[in-house]
């Protein structure tokens, strides 16, 4: 039987919160940096999920989001390639609904149960926008979760599920719009969420003859804290049973929300725990999960806890507004516009740029990035094996800070880094505090978006101080 064999999560480093000039809401929310999007966050969550794992065993990748960077170009293939998965795998995007994450989860379970895949990874990631100063803006957050589904060494079994399809225009985003729209609050709450989510939970309870007290934890989507606690009261969950929603620390992460809260629950779960998972959006999904002994073997993950704890408060709202394109700030110096990357060059360099492959010389053993035809150390020609550099740790050898470069986080830090087991690269550094920079600082690689030109997104790896 298919179940969850691993989990991971990612929360961006930056926060808007009290202390950010121009921020009005009481709590904090996590905001993706100028170089992040739903794809890059999914890659980060996937890396957390695959920690210590042989990636070649994964033969399916689903990407769930309402904020895919493209409308025709699969995000799952980018996530799969950046995660350095095999080529011969099934991939699919699940989009257009807040329920996309659990849609993808069901599909992965079904795929493994049917034998279409042995191990399918579900990534759910979102970066939803609303109008500045709106209530939605104060509630939404950015983040991602990843669940690996398999049928061997299952840590969490899915022992029952119930779904409702519901046709309603309560909260939506139209083609061409950047911000989420909604009908009036009373309608959205009464006829939408407060009606439909409980309908799915009730249907699940009836179908499997379970009650609220059977569950160690209740994990469920809600649009805001009040609606969230209402559900708990309605079904009689004690406060200890309710998995804390991420309002005030991360925010409502859309398609990733329910799965991120599930990851948070799994980080603390004990063998034998039953967990209720319920998600809302164009209907509702509800499921009964049961934790096994294997949960103790997948504890070394950053998860939600580690990511929430490591954070940097943005100094002012204006920085965030420029990152999202609400306002365009002048660069320090005139610079020409970015040109669209050559698709043929991007394709030819995909292993180097998206998998971040270097090579190891089979003659002298020196690992070098980028890949070479002739070894820089011993000059042997065409005698290499591929090496994945994306998960190699490194330290800063030297660095500079470019005060003129037009980046989202000036000054642009350029760091020459030396990798463990050999290799050196000149990198852009992200998520950094210039006061923490020094020679020998430990760094890790992170998958980011360099820029967008003519609607084409250019992805690559940057270095950053080790997150935790």
């Amino acid at each position: 039987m298919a179940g969850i064999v691993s989990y991971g999560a990612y929360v961006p480093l930056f926060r808007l919160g009290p202390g950010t000039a121009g921020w009005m809401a009481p709590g904090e929310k996590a905001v993706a940096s100028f170089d992040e999007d739903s794809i890059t966050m999914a890659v980060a969550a996937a890396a957390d999920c695959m920690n210590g794992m042989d990636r070649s065993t994964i033969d399916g990748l689903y990407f769930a989001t309402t904020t895919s960077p493209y409308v025709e170009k699969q995000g799952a293939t980018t996530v799969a390639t950046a995660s350095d998965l095999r080529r011969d795998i099934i991939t699919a995007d699940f989009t257009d609904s807040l329920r996309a994450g659990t849609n993808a989860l069901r599909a992965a379970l079904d795929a493994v149960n049917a034998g279409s895949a042995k191990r399918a990874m579900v990534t759910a990631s979102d970066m939803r926008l609303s109008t500045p100063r709106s209530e939605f803006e104060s509630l939404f957050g950015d983040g991602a979760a990843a669940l690996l589904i398999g049928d061997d060494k299952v840590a969490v079994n899915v022992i029952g599920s119930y779904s409702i399809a519901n046709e309603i225009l309560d909260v939506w985003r139209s083609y061409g719009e950047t911000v989420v729209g909604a009908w009036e609050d009373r309608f959205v709450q009464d006829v939408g969420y407060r009606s439909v989510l409980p309908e799915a939970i009730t249907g699940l309870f009836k179908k499997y003859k379970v009650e609220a007290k059977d569950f160690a934890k209740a994990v469920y989507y809600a649009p805001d804290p009040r609606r969230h606690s209402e559900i708990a009261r309605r079904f009689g969950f004690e406060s200890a049973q309710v998995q804390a929603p991420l309002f005030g620390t991360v925010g409502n992460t859309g398609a990733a929300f329910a799965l991120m809260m599930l990851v948070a629950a799994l980080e603390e779960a004990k063998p034998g725990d039953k967990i209720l998972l319920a998600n809302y959006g164009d209907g509702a999904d509800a499921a009964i999960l049961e934790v096994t002994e294997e949960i103790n073997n997948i504890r070394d993950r950053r998860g939600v806890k580690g990511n929430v704890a490591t954070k940097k408060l943005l100094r002012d709202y204006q920085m965030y507004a420029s990152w999202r394109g609400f306002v365009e700030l002048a660069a320090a110096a005139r610079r020409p516009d970015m040109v669209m990357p050559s698709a043929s060059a991007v394709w030819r360099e995909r292993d180097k740029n998206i998998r971040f492959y270097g090579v190891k010389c089979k003659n002298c053993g020196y690992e070098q990035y980028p890949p070479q035809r002739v070894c820089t150390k011993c000059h042997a020609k065409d005698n290499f094996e591929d090496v994945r550099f994306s998960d190699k740790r490194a330290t800063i050898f030297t660095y500079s800070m470019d005060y003129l470069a037009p980046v989202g986080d000036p000054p642009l830090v350029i760091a020459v880094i030396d990798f463990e087991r050999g290799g050196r690269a000149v990198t852009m550094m992200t998520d950094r505090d210039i006061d923490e920079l020094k020679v020998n600082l430990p760094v890790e690689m992170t998958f980011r978006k360099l820029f967008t030109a003519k609607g084409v997104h250019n992805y690559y790896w940057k270095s950053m101080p080790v997150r935790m």
Partner: protein
Amino acid sequence: MQGIRDRVAVVGMGCTKFGELWDNGVEDLIVDSSFEAIEDAGIEPKDIQAAWFGTVMSGMTGQVLTSALKLEYIPVTRVENACCTATEAFRNAAYAVAAGIYDIALASGAEKQKDTGFAGLGAAGGVGTFVEAPSPPPVQFALAATRYAHHYGLSYGELKTTLARIAVKNHHNGTLCPRAHFQREITLEQAINAPMIAWPLGLFDCCGVSDGGAAAIITTPEIAKKLKDDYVLIKGLGLTVGGMQGQLQDWYDFVHFEENVTAAKVAYNDAGIKNPRKEIDLAIVHDCFTITELIIMEDLEFSPRGKAPEDVAAGTFSLEGELPVNTDGGLKCFGHPVGASGLRMIYEVYKQLQGKAEKRQLKKADIGLTQNLGGRPGSFTCAISILGKRD
């Protein structure tokens, strides 16, 4: 292999004013500098049998040169070797004359940089994936500055002061040079406290962007004797090209530029120089950034490794010092039109050797060196010339 020493003479040179020459197109830069060289040599344009035209971004093929000068159906090679372009044009012309293929050749370098509308070099564009970390020259050399301080245990303040001394020296020298782009004194404090460009390098650690052109007429010593008495001889030439070694190899230290060292060895060997600090009277080097000049002093064996800061503080490289460096203000103040700089360096040595360096004239100027550098720490092209008085 035969060396180049005393087989080739420089018999005429020209150099435009360098700066923001809004009124000049690349044609003007070529005409002004080349005709000055032709007249200085006492020849006519039709005497030129072959030419090497250096430019990085101001035109393709030799036709840019021939159409400007109206040279008729002679062989012209368009040369590009990054910031070494002009020295490379000079070197190839010299080899052609030394090989006995041509008697009189023109080496010309010109660059029109102020039409782009952007400060700095290297605008985006072109074709590629654009994933390389954008490191324009200030960033590239800043990486060496950060590491130099770490490697030799300099505090941030000590590094900034050392670099500021170099900027102050070159600014002072520029005020004595009418063709230089910048002619203004600065103080140590101004240099140290200038706005950051690429930490730790500030505004006065970085050379600016300029337009300019320079040229040389090259011939055999026999023909040179017939044309003038004060011709200058090429004593040594060196060119070395790196291959990204320092960018790939994690054992590269970022505090020396191997290409300088190897090119200098070749040129010193050619010229018969055993003790560069003692035997060389002046050096015009590639101070695109103050840190570059600092490291070059050690690469060229003017200072022992790690000791250049002391020599800088002692004034060793000032006009009055033991080994004056960048007597014409260097790239910092004369300017750096990329395709012309190498020939401008040779122009200064040429004038000093002839006793025509005006207010900058050194008392002793018998052997001069130019060092021209293109690329980035970890992968450079370095071109060196050594020139001396005849006999």
